[in-house]
Protein backbone atom coordinates (compact mmCIF):
# COMPACT_ATOMS: atom_id res chain seq x y z
CA UNK A 1 0.00 0.00 0.00
CA UNK A 2 2.74 2.33 0.97
CA UNK A 3 4.60 1.58 -2.14
CA UNK A 4 1.68 2.42 -4.32
CA UNK A 5 1.45 5.82 -2.67
CA UNK A 6 5.07 6.57 -3.26
CA UNK A 7 4.83 5.57 -6.89
CA UNK A 8 1.90 7.87 -7.37
CA UNK A 9 3.89 10.62 -5.82
CA UNK A 10 6.79 10.14 -8.15
CA UNK A 11 4.50 10.39 -11.12
CA UNK A 12 3.05 13.61 -9.80
CA UNK A 13 6.52 15.01 -9.37
CA UNK A 14 7.65 14.29 -12.87
CA UNK A 15 4.60 16.07 -14.20
CA UNK A 16 5.39 19.14 -12.15
CA UNK A 17 9.03 19.09 -13.18
CA UNK A 18 8.27 20.19 -16.72
CA UNK A 19 6.72 23.41 -15.43
CA UNK A 20 9.70 24.40 -13.36
CA UNK A 21 12.18 23.90 -16.13
CA UNK A 22 11.13 27.12 -17.83
CA UNK A 23 12.73 29.38 -15.23
CA UNK A 24 15.55 31.49 -16.59
CA UNK A 25 16.40 33.92 -13.75
CA UNK A 26 19.60 33.04 -11.90
CA UNK A 27 19.03 31.75 -8.39
CA UNK A 28 21.34 30.86 -5.56
CA UNK A 29 20.14 28.01 -3.43
CA UNK A 30 21.98 26.73 -0.39
CA UNK A 31 21.97 23.25 1.05
CA UNK A 32 22.81 22.67 4.70
CA UNK A 33 22.56 19.06 5.84
CA UNK A 34 23.76 18.06 9.30
CA UNK A 35 26.80 16.55 7.71
CA UNK A 36 27.74 16.48 4.09
CA UNK A 37 29.41 13.12 4.16
CA UNK A 38 26.53 10.75 4.61
CA UNK A 39 24.83 8.48 2.15
CA UNK A 40 21.46 10.09 2.87
CA UNK A 41 22.57 13.69 2.59
CA UNK A 42 24.62 12.86 -0.51
CA UNK A 43 21.55 11.32 -2.11
CA UNK A 44 19.43 14.34 -1.27
CA UNK A 45 22.07 16.50 -2.83
CA UNK A 46 22.20 14.47 -6.02
CA UNK A 47 18.43 14.46 -6.21
CA UNK A 48 18.28 18.21 -5.87
CA UNK A 49 21.16 18.79 -8.27
CA UNK A 50 19.33 16.83 -10.91
CA UNK A 51 16.39 19.19 -10.63
CA UNK A 52 18.49 22.32 -10.56
CA UNK A 53 20.50 21.26 -13.60
CA UNK A 54 17.48 22.11 -15.69
CA UNK A 55 17.38 25.71 -14.51
CA UNK A 56 19.83 28.49 -13.90
CA UNK A 57 20.62 27.74 -10.30
CA UNK A 58 23.83 27.86 -8.30
CA UNK A 59 23.46 25.07 -5.79
CA UNK A 60 26.02 25.20 -3.01
CA UNK A 61 26.35 22.63 -0.25
CA UNK A 62 27.81 23.40 3.18
CA UNK A 63 29.11 21.04 5.83
CA UNK A 64 27.92 21.52 9.40
CA UNK A 65 29.90 18.64 10.90
CA UNK A 66 26.84 17.36 12.78
CA UNK A 67 26.68 20.52 14.86
CA UNK A 68 23.63 22.69 15.31
CA UNK A 69 25.78 25.71 16.16
CA UNK A 70 27.54 25.44 12.82
CA UNK A 71 24.22 25.13 11.05
CA UNK A 72 23.04 28.37 12.65
CA UNK A 73 26.27 30.06 11.55
CA UNK A 74 25.79 28.78 8.04
CA UNK A 75 22.16 29.90 7.98
CA UNK A 76 23.22 33.41 9.00
CA UNK A 77 25.84 33.41 6.34
CA UNK A 78 23.51 32.30 3.57
CA UNK A 79 21.05 34.97 4.63
CA UNK A 80 23.79 37.58 4.45
CA UNK A 81 24.96 36.32 1.10
CA UNK A 82 21.46 36.83 -0.21
CA UNK A 83 20.69 33.26 -1.13
CA UNK A 84 17.25 32.89 -2.67
CA UNK A 85 16.26 29.71 -0.91
CA UNK A 86 17.71 27.27 1.57
CA UNK A 87 17.28 23.56 1.87
CA UNK A 88 18.06 22.57 5.42
CA UNK A 89 18.23 19.36 7.38
CA UNK A 90 18.05 20.71 10.93
CA UNK A 91 20.27 18.95 13.42
CA UNK A 92 17.72 19.93 15.99
CA UNK A 93 14.27 21.40 15.74
CA UNK A 94 14.56 23.90 18.54
CA UNK A 95 18.10 24.98 17.69
CA UNK A 96 17.34 25.93 14.10
CA UNK A 97 13.95 27.50 14.68
CA UNK A 98 15.29 30.99 15.22
CA UNK A 99 17.50 30.84 12.14
CA UNK A 100 14.72 29.59 9.93
CA UNK A 101 12.48 32.32 11.23
CA UNK A 102 15.13 34.91 10.48
CA UNK A 103 15.56 33.66 6.93
CA UNK A 104 11.86 33.59 6.29
CA UNK A 105 11.54 37.11 7.64
CA UNK A 106 14.04 38.19 4.99
CA UNK A 107 11.93 36.51 2.35
CA UNK A 108 14.16 33.48 1.94
CA UNK A 109 12.06 30.35 1.87
CA UNK A 110 13.48 27.50 3.90
CA UNK A 111 12.61 23.95 3.06
CA UNK A 112 13.47 21.55 5.81
CA UNK A 113 14.29 17.93 5.28
CA UNK A 114 13.06 15.28 7.70
CA UNK A 115 13.22 17.29 10.92
CA UNK A 116 10.78 20.16 11.11
CA UNK A 117 11.44 23.33 13.04
CA UNK A 118 8.99 24.71 15.56
CA UNK A 119 7.73 27.82 13.76
CA UNK A 120 6.02 27.97 10.34
CA UNK A 121 8.19 28.14 7.25
CA UNK A 122 7.94 27.23 3.59
CA UNK A 123 7.88 23.47 3.62
CA UNK A 124 9.03 20.31 5.27
CA UNK A 125 9.81 17.35 3.06
CA UNK A 126 9.97 14.43 5.39
CA UNK A 127 10.31 10.72 5.32
CA UNK A 128 8.37 10.77 8.56
CA UNK A 129 10.86 9.46 11.06
CA UNK A 130 8.29 8.68 13.68
CA UNK A 131 5.86 7.05 11.26
CA UNK A 132 8.59 4.95 9.73
CA UNK A 133 9.76 3.89 13.15
CA UNK A 134 6.21 2.86 13.85
CA UNK A 135 6.14 0.90 10.62
CA UNK A 136 9.28 -1.02 11.55
CA UNK A 137 7.84 -1.69 14.99
CA UNK A 138 4.85 -3.26 13.39
CA UNK A 139 6.94 -5.29 10.98
CA UNK A 140 9.14 -6.65 13.72
CA UNK A 141 6.16 -7.36 15.96
CA UNK A 142 4.46 -9.17 13.18
CA UNK A 143 7.47 -11.28 12.27
CA UNK A 144 8.08 -12.29 15.87
CA UNK A 145 4.50 -13.25 16.31
CA UNK A 146 4.00 -10.73 19.07
CA UNK A 147 6.53 -12.27 21.43
CA UNK A 148 10.26 -11.98 21.94
CA UNK A 149 13.20 -9.84 22.91
CA UNK A 150 14.17 -6.75 20.98
CA UNK A 151 17.12 -4.41 21.35
CA UNK A 152 17.51 -0.92 19.98
CA UNK A 153 20.73 0.59 18.70
CA UNK A 154 20.28 4.28 19.33
CA UNK A 155 21.66 7.48 17.96
CA UNK A 156 23.44 9.87 20.31
CA UNK A 157 21.13 11.25 22.97
CA UNK A 158 19.65 14.46 21.70
CA UNK A 159 19.84 13.57 18.00
CA UNK A 160 16.32 14.31 17.05
CA UNK A 161 15.86 12.16 13.98
CA UNK A 162 17.02 9.11 15.88
CA UNK A 163 14.80 9.92 18.82
CA UNK A 164 11.74 10.28 16.60
CA UNK A 165 12.45 6.95 14.95
CA UNK A 166 12.90 5.21 18.26
CA UNK A 167 9.78 6.80 19.68
CA UNK A 168 7.71 5.62 16.74
CA UNK A 169 9.15 2.16 17.09
CA UNK A 170 8.45 1.99 20.80
CA UNK A 171 4.93 3.31 20.26
CA UNK A 172 4.17 0.55 17.80
CA UNK A 173 5.40 -2.14 20.14
CA UNK A 174 3.61 -0.64 23.11
CA UNK A 175 0.38 -0.39 21.23
CA UNK A 176 0.21 -3.58 19.23
CA UNK A 177 2.72 -5.96 20.73
CA UNK A 178 2.88 -5.49 24.48
CA UNK A 179 4.49 -8.91 24.92
CA UNK A 180 7.60 -7.96 23.08
CA UNK A 181 10.25 -6.97 25.54
CA UNK A 182 12.79 -4.27 24.82
CA UNK A 183 15.84 -5.75 26.48
CA UNK A 184 18.34 -3.03 25.78
CA UNK A 185 18.90 0.31 24.13
CA UNK A 186 22.38 1.62 23.58
CA UNK A 187 23.89 4.51 21.72
CA UNK A 188 26.26 3.68 18.86
CA UNK A 189 26.85 7.26 17.68
CA UNK A 190 25.39 6.61 14.20
CA UNK A 191 28.51 4.67 13.22
CA UNK A 192 29.37 1.12 12.30
CA UNK A 193 32.28 0.34 14.56
CA UNK A 194 30.44 1.44 17.71
CA UNK A 195 27.43 -0.55 16.55
CA UNK A 196 29.59 -3.67 16.39
CA UNK A 197 30.69 -3.05 19.97
CA UNK A 198 27.15 -2.38 21.19
CA UNK A 199 25.72 -5.36 19.34
CA UNK A 200 28.39 -7.59 20.84
CA UNK A 201 27.30 -6.63 24.31
CA UNK A 202 23.64 -7.21 23.41
CA UNK A 203 24.59 -10.65 22.19
CA UNK A 204 26.44 -11.34 25.41
CA UNK A 205 23.66 -10.29 27.73
CA UNK A 206 20.77 -11.73 25.77
CA UNK A 207 21.19 -15.32 24.76
CA UNK A 208 17.77 -15.23 23.15
CA UNK A 209 17.72 -11.97 21.27
CA UNK A 210 15.14 -12.04 18.50
CA UNK A 211 15.37 -8.70 16.78
CA UNK A 212 17.37 -5.52 16.67
CA UNK A 213 16.26 -2.15 15.45
CA UNK A 214 19.06 0.23 14.54
CA UNK A 215 17.94 3.80 13.94
CA UNK A 216 20.08 4.09 10.85
CA UNK A 217 21.42 1.68 8.27
CA UNK A 218 25.05 2.16 9.18
CA UNK A 219 24.44 0.84 12.65
CA UNK A 220 22.28 -1.99 11.30
CA UNK A 221 25.18 -3.02 9.09
CA UNK A 222 27.46 -2.91 12.10
CA UNK A 223 25.04 -5.07 14.07
CA UNK A 224 25.02 -7.54 11.21
CA UNK A 225 28.79 -7.81 11.26
CA UNK A 226 28.73 -8.53 14.99
CA UNK A 227 25.89 -11.04 14.77
CA UNK A 228 27.52 -12.81 11.86
CA UNK A 229 30.80 -13.02 13.69
CA UNK A 230 29.02 -14.52 16.70
CA UNK A 231 27.27 -16.98 14.41
CA UNK A 232 23.83 -15.80 15.44
CA UNK A 233 22.81 -13.85 12.38
CA UNK A 234 20.23 -16.46 11.43
CA UNK A 235 18.34 -16.12 14.68
CA UNK A 236 18.18 -12.36 14.84
CA UNK A 237 16.13 -10.04 12.69
CA UNK A 238 17.98 -6.80 12.11
CA UNK A 239 16.20 -3.71 10.88
CA UNK A 240 17.81 -0.51 9.76
CA UNK A 241 16.51 2.84 8.67
CA UNK A 242 17.00 5.01 5.54
CA UNK A 243 17.57 2.32 2.94
CA UNK A 244 21.01 3.14 1.63
CA UNK A 245 22.34 1.12 -1.27
CA UNK A 246 24.70 -1.06 0.74
CA UNK A 247 21.92 -2.01 3.12
CA UNK A 248 19.63 -2.95 0.28
CA UNK A 249 22.37 -5.24 -1.02
CA UNK A 250 22.69 -6.82 2.40
CA UNK A 251 18.93 -7.31 2.46
CA UNK A 252 19.17 -9.07 -0.85
CA UNK A 253 21.88 -11.27 0.62
CA UNK A 254 19.55 -12.02 3.51
CA UNK A 255 21.85 -10.59 6.13
CA UNK A 256 19.71 -7.65 7.11
CA UNK A 257 16.01 -8.29 7.50
CA UNK A 258 14.74 -4.97 6.38
CA UNK A 259 14.93 -1.22 6.40
CA UNK A 260 12.60 1.73 6.06
CA UNK A 261 13.54 2.75 2.56
CA UNK A 262 13.00 6.26 1.37
CA UNK A 263 13.77 7.36 -2.11
CA UNK A 264 16.23 10.02 -1.03
CA UNK A 265 16.87 11.15 -4.61
CA UNK A 266 13.22 11.75 -4.91
CA UNK A 267 13.04 13.48 -1.54
CA UNK A 268 15.88 15.84 -2.41
CA UNK A 269 14.32 16.44 -5.79
CA UNK A 270 10.98 17.23 -4.23
CA UNK A 271 12.54 19.79 -1.93
CA UNK A 272 14.39 21.31 -4.86
CA UNK A 273 11.28 21.50 -6.99
CA UNK A 274 9.33 23.05 -4.21
CA UNK A 275 11.99 25.69 -3.84
CA UNK A 276 11.93 26.43 -7.54
CA UNK A 277 8.17 26.71 -7.56
CA UNK A 278 8.24 29.20 -4.73
CA UNK A 279 10.91 31.22 -6.47
CA UNK A 280 9.23 31.27 -9.83
CA UNK A 281 5.93 32.11 -8.25
CA UNK A 282 4.19 28.94 -9.31
CA UNK A 283 3.39 28.38 -5.67
CA UNK A 284 2.65 30.87 -2.94
CA UNK A 285 3.88 30.47 0.56
CA UNK A 286 1.14 29.50 2.98
CA UNK A 287 0.68 30.57 6.57
CA UNK A 288 1.57 27.13 7.79
CA UNK A 289 4.46 24.87 6.92
CA UNK A 290 3.53 22.67 4.03
CA UNK A 291 4.37 19.16 5.01
CA UNK A 292 5.21 16.84 2.16
CA UNK A 293 5.58 13.30 3.30
CA UNK A 294 7.69 10.98 1.25
CA UNK A 295 6.24 7.80 2.62
CA UNK A 296 8.62 5.11 3.74
CA UNK A 297 8.70 1.75 2.17
CA UNK A 298 9.52 -1.31 4.18
CA UNK A 299 12.21 -2.97 2.12
CA UNK A 300 12.65 -6.63 2.96
CA UNK A 301 14.05 -9.55 1.04
CA UNK A 302 10.69 -9.99 -0.63
CA UNK A 303 10.12 -6.40 -1.60
CA UNK A 304 13.61 -5.06 -2.15
CA UNK A 305 13.59 -6.05 -5.80
CA UNK A 306 10.91 -3.45 -6.40
CA UNK A 307 13.42 -0.69 -5.76
CA UNK A 308 14.94 0.11 -9.09
CA UNK A 309 18.68 0.40 -9.51
CA UNK A 310 18.47 4.09 -10.33
CA UNK A 311 16.53 4.73 -7.13
CA UNK A 312 19.22 3.20 -4.98
CA UNK A 313 21.56 5.60 -3.29
Amino acid at each position, binding site marked *: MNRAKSMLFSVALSVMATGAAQAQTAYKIGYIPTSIGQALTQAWRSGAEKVFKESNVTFQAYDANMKAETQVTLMDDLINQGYNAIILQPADAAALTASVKKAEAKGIPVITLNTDTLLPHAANVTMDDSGSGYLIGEKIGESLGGKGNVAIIQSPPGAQAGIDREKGFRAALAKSYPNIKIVGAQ*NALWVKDKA*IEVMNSFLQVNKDLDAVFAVNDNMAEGATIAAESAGRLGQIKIWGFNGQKSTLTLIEQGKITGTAYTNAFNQGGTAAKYAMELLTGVKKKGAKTEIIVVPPFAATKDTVAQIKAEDRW
Partner: protein
Amino acid sequence: MKAFNWRQLLLDLRLFWILLLLMALLSVASDRFLTIDNLTNVLWSVCLIGIMCTGAIYAPITGGIDLSVATIAALAGIIANLLMNVCDLNWLLAIAITLGIGVLIGWVNGIVTTKFNVPAFIVTMAAKTYLFGIAMLVSNGDQITIMQPKAFLAIGIDKYLGIPIPIYLMALLVVFSHLLLKHTVFGRQCIAVGANEVAAKLSGVNPDRTRIIAYIISAVTASIAGIVMASLTQQAYAMNATGYEFDVITAIVIGGTSLMGGNGSVAGALIGAVMVGFINNGLNLLDMPSSYHPIATGIVILVALIMNQGVSLPGFIKRLRRPDRAPGQTASQ
Protein backbone atom coordinates in the same frame (compact mmCIF):
# COMPACT_ATOMS: atom_id res chain seq x y z
CA MET B 1 66.81 -9.32 29.83
CA LYS B 2 68.36 -8.57 33.19
CA ALA B 3 68.26 -4.90 32.41
CA PHE B 4 64.69 -4.79 33.53
CA ASN B 5 63.37 -1.54 34.78
CA TRP B 6 61.74 -2.57 38.03
CA ARG B 7 60.18 0.76 38.64
CA GLN B 8 58.48 0.65 35.29
CA LEU B 9 57.46 -2.92 35.91
CA LEU B 10 55.94 -1.95 39.24
CA LEU B 11 54.09 0.88 37.56
CA ASP B 12 52.78 -1.48 34.93
CA LEU B 13 51.83 -3.94 37.60
CA ARG B 14 50.08 -1.27 39.61
CA LEU B 15 47.99 -0.53 36.57
CA PHE B 16 47.44 -4.21 36.20
CA TRP B 17 46.05 -4.39 39.72
CA ILE B 18 43.67 -1.54 38.94
CA LEU B 19 42.64 -3.44 35.86
CA LEU B 20 42.00 -6.61 37.85
CA LEU B 21 40.05 -4.64 40.41
CA LEU B 22 37.95 -3.13 37.68
CA MET B 23 37.37 -6.59 36.21
CA ALA B 24 36.35 -7.93 39.61
CA LEU B 25 33.91 -5.07 40.10
CA LEU B 26 32.42 -5.53 36.66
CA SER B 27 32.09 -9.27 37.03
CA VAL B 28 30.16 -8.74 40.25
CA ALA B 29 27.95 -6.23 38.51
CA SER B 30 27.24 -8.40 35.50
CA ASP B 31 27.51 -12.17 35.28
CA ARG B 32 28.06 -11.85 31.54
CA PHE B 33 31.22 -9.90 31.94
CA LEU B 34 33.74 -12.56 32.78
CA THR B 35 33.20 -14.86 29.84
CA ILE B 36 35.74 -15.70 27.19
CA ASP B 37 33.34 -14.49 24.55
CA ASN B 38 32.82 -11.16 26.15
CA LEU B 39 36.46 -10.56 26.94
CA THR B 40 37.29 -11.40 23.35
CA ASN B 41 34.70 -8.90 22.24
CA VAL B 42 36.17 -6.20 24.43
CA LEU B 43 39.61 -6.85 23.03
CA TRP B 44 38.13 -6.77 19.56
CA SER B 45 36.49 -3.44 20.24
CA VAL B 46 39.65 -1.86 21.67
CA CYS B 47 41.74 -3.10 18.74
CA LEU B 48 41.53 0.13 16.78
CA ILE B 49 42.52 2.27 19.76
CA GLY B 50 45.11 -0.30 20.77
CA ILE B 51 46.73 -0.38 17.35
CA MET B 52 46.80 3.42 17.17
CA CYS B 53 48.35 3.57 20.65
CA THR B 54 51.27 1.37 19.70
CA GLY B 55 52.53 4.06 17.36
CA ALA B 56 50.94 7.23 18.67
CA ILE B 57 52.79 6.70 21.95
CA TYR B 58 56.06 7.74 20.31
CA ALA B 59 54.86 11.32 19.93
CA PRO B 60 54.44 11.94 23.68
CA ILE B 61 57.59 9.93 24.46
CA THR B 62 59.60 12.41 22.41
CA GLY B 63 57.76 15.26 24.08
CA GLY B 64 55.13 15.95 21.43
CA ILE B 65 51.57 14.90 20.74
CA ASP B 66 49.71 13.57 17.71
CA LEU B 67 46.10 14.68 17.39
CA SER B 68 45.79 13.64 13.77
CA VAL B 69 45.75 9.85 14.20
CA ALA B 70 41.99 9.45 13.89
CA THR B 71 41.79 11.38 10.66
CA ILE B 72 44.79 9.54 9.26
CA ALA B 73 42.94 6.30 9.98
CA ALA B 74 39.85 7.47 8.12
CA LEU B 75 41.93 8.63 5.20
CA ALA B 76 43.85 5.35 5.08
CA GLY B 77 40.62 3.39 4.73
CA ILE B 78 39.51 5.61 1.88
CA ILE B 79 42.82 5.40 0.08
CA ALA B 80 43.01 1.64 0.47
CA ASN B 81 39.55 1.30 -0.99
CA LEU B 82 40.37 3.68 -3.81
CA LEU B 83 43.43 1.67 -4.73
CA MET B 84 41.71 -1.69 -4.51
CA ASN B 85 38.35 -0.98 -6.00
CA VAL B 86 38.89 1.94 -8.32
CA CYS B 87 42.47 1.38 -9.40
CA ASP B 88 42.05 -2.40 -9.24
CA LEU B 89 45.31 -3.00 -7.47
CA ASN B 90 46.10 -6.15 -5.58
CA TRP B 91 44.95 -5.71 -1.99
CA LEU B 92 48.38 -6.28 -0.52
CA LEU B 93 49.89 -3.72 -2.85
CA ALA B 94 47.07 -1.34 -1.97
CA ILE B 95 47.80 -1.73 1.72
CA ALA B 96 51.49 -1.18 1.10
CA ILE B 97 50.81 2.03 -0.81
CA THR B 98 48.38 3.19 1.87
CA LEU B 99 51.03 2.68 4.51
CA GLY B 100 53.42 4.57 2.27
CA ILE B 101 51.03 7.50 2.24
CA GLY B 102 50.86 7.19 6.02
CA VAL B 103 54.64 7.56 6.08
CA LEU B 104 54.32 10.70 4.00
CA ILE B 105 51.70 12.22 6.30
CA GLY B 106 53.78 11.45 9.36
CA TRP B 107 56.83 12.86 7.66
CA VAL B 108 55.02 16.14 6.97
CA ASN B 109 53.85 16.34 10.58
CA GLY B 110 57.37 15.65 11.76
CA ILE B 111 59.03 18.11 9.41
CA VAL B 112 56.71 20.97 10.31
CA THR B 113 57.13 20.23 14.01
CA THR B 114 60.90 19.93 14.01
CA LYS B 115 62.26 22.00 11.17
CA PHE B 116 59.74 24.83 11.41
CA ASN B 117 59.59 24.66 15.16
CA VAL B 118 55.80 24.80 15.40
CA PRO B 119 54.26 23.13 18.46
CA ALA B 120 53.16 19.59 17.69
CA PHE B 121 49.75 20.33 19.15
CA ILE B 122 49.04 22.96 16.50
CA VAL B 123 50.65 21.03 13.66
CA THR B 124 48.70 17.86 14.24
CA MET B 125 45.51 19.74 15.02
CA ALA B 126 45.73 21.53 11.69
CA ALA B 127 46.68 18.23 10.06
CA LYS B 128 43.49 16.78 11.47
CA THR B 129 41.52 19.54 9.77
CA TYR B 130 43.11 19.40 6.35
CA LEU B 131 43.40 15.62 6.24
CA PHE B 132 39.68 15.46 6.88
CA GLY B 133 39.19 17.72 3.88
CA ILE B 134 41.43 15.49 1.79
CA ALA B 135 39.56 12.43 2.96
CA MET B 136 36.25 14.04 1.98
CA LEU B 137 37.70 15.06 -1.34
CA VAL B 138 39.08 11.64 -2.19
CA SER B 139 35.93 9.84 -1.11
CA ASN B 140 33.72 12.53 -2.62
CA GLY B 141 32.05 12.65 0.78
CA ASP B 142 30.53 9.23 0.24
CA GLN B 143 30.17 6.43 2.71
CA ILE B 144 31.74 3.85 0.52
CA THR B 145 30.85 0.27 1.22
CA ILE B 146 33.75 -2.04 0.58
CA MET B 147 32.50 -5.25 -0.97
CA GLN B 148 35.77 -6.45 -2.49
CA PRO B 149 38.21 -8.13 -2.13
CA LYS B 150 37.31 -10.85 0.31
CA ALA B 151 40.86 -11.21 1.54
CA PHE B 152 40.91 -7.57 2.57
CA LEU B 153 37.59 -7.82 4.34
CA ALA B 154 38.85 -10.86 6.22
CA ILE B 155 41.40 -8.71 8.08
CA GLY B 156 38.78 -7.18 10.28
CA ILE B 157 36.34 -10.00 10.83
CA ASP B 158 37.84 -13.41 10.27
CA LYS B 159 38.77 -15.48 13.26
CA TYR B 160 41.60 -17.80 13.93
CA LEU B 161 41.10 -20.20 16.84
CA GLY B 162 37.96 -18.27 17.72
CA ILE B 163 39.77 -15.00 18.09
CA PRO B 164 39.33 -12.20 15.54
CA ILE B 165 42.38 -11.38 13.42
CA PRO B 166 42.63 -7.73 14.59
CA ILE B 167 43.44 -8.98 18.09
CA TYR B 168 46.41 -10.89 16.75
CA LEU B 169 47.42 -7.86 14.80
CA MET B 170 47.15 -5.67 17.87
CA ALA B 171 49.11 -8.17 19.94
CA LEU B 172 51.77 -8.33 17.25
CA LEU B 173 52.05 -4.56 17.08
CA VAL B 174 52.14 -4.24 20.86
CA VAL B 175 55.00 -6.72 21.04
CA PHE B 176 56.71 -5.06 18.13
CA SER B 177 56.29 -1.59 19.57
CA HIS B 178 57.36 -2.73 23.01
CA LEU B 179 60.50 -4.25 21.57
CA LEU B 180 61.13 -1.16 19.51
CA LEU B 181 60.78 1.10 22.51
CA LYS B 182 62.62 -0.97 25.09
CA HIS B 183 65.15 -2.95 23.14
CA THR B 184 66.30 -0.99 20.16
CA VAL B 185 68.55 1.92 19.47
CA PHE B 186 65.64 3.93 18.16
CA GLY B 187 63.63 3.38 21.33
CA ARG B 188 66.52 4.60 23.46
CA GLN B 189 66.87 7.63 21.25
CA CYS B 190 63.18 8.49 21.56
CA ILE B 191 63.30 8.31 25.33
CA ALA B 192 66.51 10.34 25.43
CA VAL B 193 65.10 13.06 23.18
CA GLY B 194 61.99 13.29 25.33
CA ALA B 195 63.97 13.32 28.58
CA ASN B 196 66.55 15.94 27.62
CA GLU B 197 66.87 16.95 24.04
CA VAL B 198 70.19 18.76 24.48
CA ALA B 199 71.82 15.96 26.42
CA ALA B 200 70.61 13.48 23.82
CA LYS B 201 72.00 15.62 21.04
CA LEU B 202 75.39 15.84 22.74
CA SER B 203 75.38 12.06 23.12
CA GLY B 204 75.05 11.61 19.41
CA VAL B 205 71.29 11.41 18.95
CA ASN B 206 69.72 13.42 16.16
CA PRO B 207 66.60 14.83 17.85
CA ASP B 208 64.92 16.06 14.69
CA ARG B 209 65.34 12.77 12.88
CA THR B 210 64.13 10.86 15.93
CA ARG B 211 61.03 13.03 16.20
CA ILE B 212 60.25 12.79 12.52
CA ILE B 213 60.46 9.01 12.69
CA ALA B 214 58.23 9.08 15.77
CA TYR B 215 55.53 10.93 13.83
CA ILE B 216 55.97 8.58 10.90
CA ILE B 217 55.46 5.57 13.15
CA SER B 218 52.44 7.24 14.65
CA ALA B 219 50.94 7.87 11.23
CA VAL B 220 51.73 4.36 10.01
CA THR B 221 50.05 2.61 12.92
CA ALA B 222 47.14 4.98 12.49
CA SER B 223 46.99 3.88 8.87
CA ILE B 224 47.06 0.25 9.94
CA ALA B 225 44.20 0.95 12.32
CA GLY B 226 42.39 2.68 9.48
CA ILE B 227 42.82 -0.36 7.25
CA VAL B 228 41.58 -2.67 9.99
CA MET B 229 38.66 -0.36 10.59
CA ALA B 230 37.78 -0.19 6.91
CA SER B 231 37.90 -3.94 6.74
CA LEU B 232 35.94 -4.43 9.95
CA THR B 233 33.18 -1.99 9.10
CA GLN B 234 33.40 -2.72 5.37
CA GLN B 235 33.31 0.97 4.92
CA ALA B 236 35.58 3.72 3.72
CA TYR B 237 34.35 6.91 5.21
CA ALA B 238 35.86 10.28 6.07
CA MET B 239 34.03 10.43 9.40
CA ASN B 240 35.33 7.06 10.54
CA ALA B 241 37.17 7.10 13.86
CA THR B 242 36.04 10.65 14.66
CA GLY B 243 37.24 11.62 18.12
CA TYR B 244 39.48 8.58 18.54
CA GLU B 245 42.53 10.77 19.07
CA PHE B 246 41.33 11.64 22.56
CA ASP B 247 40.70 7.98 23.38
CA VAL B 248 44.21 7.20 22.19
CA ILE B 249 45.79 9.91 24.32
CA THR B 250 43.68 8.86 27.27
CA ALA B 251 44.86 5.26 26.98
CA ILE B 252 48.47 6.34 26.61
CA VAL B 253 48.36 8.59 29.64
CA ILE B 254 46.50 6.10 31.83
CA GLY B 255 49.27 3.72 30.85
CA GLY B 256 51.78 5.87 32.67
CA THR B 257 53.33 7.74 29.75
CA SER B 258 54.00 11.35 30.53
CA LEU B 259 53.01 13.98 27.99
CA MET B 260 56.20 15.80 28.91
CA GLY B 261 58.26 13.07 27.29
CA GLY B 262 61.07 10.83 28.40
CA ASN B 263 59.21 7.72 29.37
CA GLY B 264 56.55 5.48 28.02
CA SER B 265 55.03 2.08 28.31
CA VAL B 266 53.37 0.34 25.41
CA ALA B 267 52.02 -2.36 27.67
CA GLY B 268 50.64 0.35 29.94
CA ALA B 269 48.93 2.05 27.03
CA LEU B 270 47.36 -1.26 26.06
CA ILE B 271 46.14 -1.75 29.62
CA GLY B 272 44.80 1.79 29.52
CA ALA B 273 42.93 1.08 26.31
CA VAL B 274 41.56 -2.19 27.68
CA MET B 275 40.48 -0.45 30.85
CA VAL B 276 38.47 2.10 28.93
CA GLY B 277 37.12 -0.78 26.84
CA PHE B 278 36.05 -2.64 29.96
CA ILE B 279 34.25 0.37 31.34
CA ASN B 280 32.34 0.90 28.14
CA ASN B 281 31.59 -2.78 27.85
CA GLY B 282 30.52 -3.06 31.47
CA LEU B 283 28.18 -0.12 31.17
CA ASN B 284 26.80 -1.56 27.95
CA LEU B 285 26.21 -4.93 29.59
CA LEU B 286 24.40 -3.21 32.43
CA ASP B 287 22.40 -1.28 29.83
CA MET B 288 23.41 2.05 31.34
CA PRO B 289 22.71 5.12 29.24
CA SER B 290 25.61 6.21 27.10
CA SER B 291 25.91 9.46 29.04
CA TYR B 292 27.62 7.52 31.82
CA HIS B 293 30.45 6.34 29.58
CA PRO B 294 32.41 9.59 29.39
CA ILE B 295 31.85 10.20 33.10
CA ALA B 296 33.22 6.80 34.07
CA THR B 297 36.15 7.20 31.71
CA GLY B 298 36.94 10.64 33.07
CA ILE B 299 36.93 9.39 36.63
CA VAL B 300 39.14 6.44 35.73
CA ILE B 301 41.64 8.80 34.08
CA LEU B 302 41.85 10.91 37.20
CA VAL B 303 42.11 7.94 39.56
CA ALA B 304 44.73 6.19 37.43
CA LEU B 305 46.77 9.39 37.15
CA ILE B 306 46.65 10.08 40.84
CA MET B 307 47.66 6.51 41.58
CA ASN B 308 50.48 6.79 39.06
CA GLN B 309 51.70 9.76 41.07
CA GLY B 310 52.08 7.36 43.94
CA VAL B 311 49.19 8.49 46.08
CA SER B 312 47.24 5.94 48.06
CA LEU B 313 43.82 6.61 49.51
CA PRO B 314 44.93 6.78 53.17
CA GLY B 315 47.79 9.03 52.16
CA PHE B 316 45.39 11.24 50.30
CA ILE B 317 43.11 11.66 53.31
CA LYS B 318 46.08 12.38 55.50
CA ARG B 319 47.27 15.03 53.10
CA LEU B 320 43.88 16.64 52.93
CA ARG B 321 44.25 17.32 56.61
CA ARG B 322 47.68 18.83 56.09
CA PRO B 323 47.34 20.56 52.77
CA ASP B 324 50.76 22.16 52.96
CA ARG B 325 52.44 19.10 51.58
CA ALA B 326 51.35 18.13 48.15
CA PRO B 327 52.21 14.71 46.76
CA GLY B 328 54.10 14.04 43.60
CA GLN B 329 57.31 15.66 42.59
CA THR B 330 58.36 18.81 44.35
CA ALA B 331 58.40 21.50 41.76
CA SER B 332 57.05 20.97 38.31
CA GLN B 333 59.45 22.96 36.28
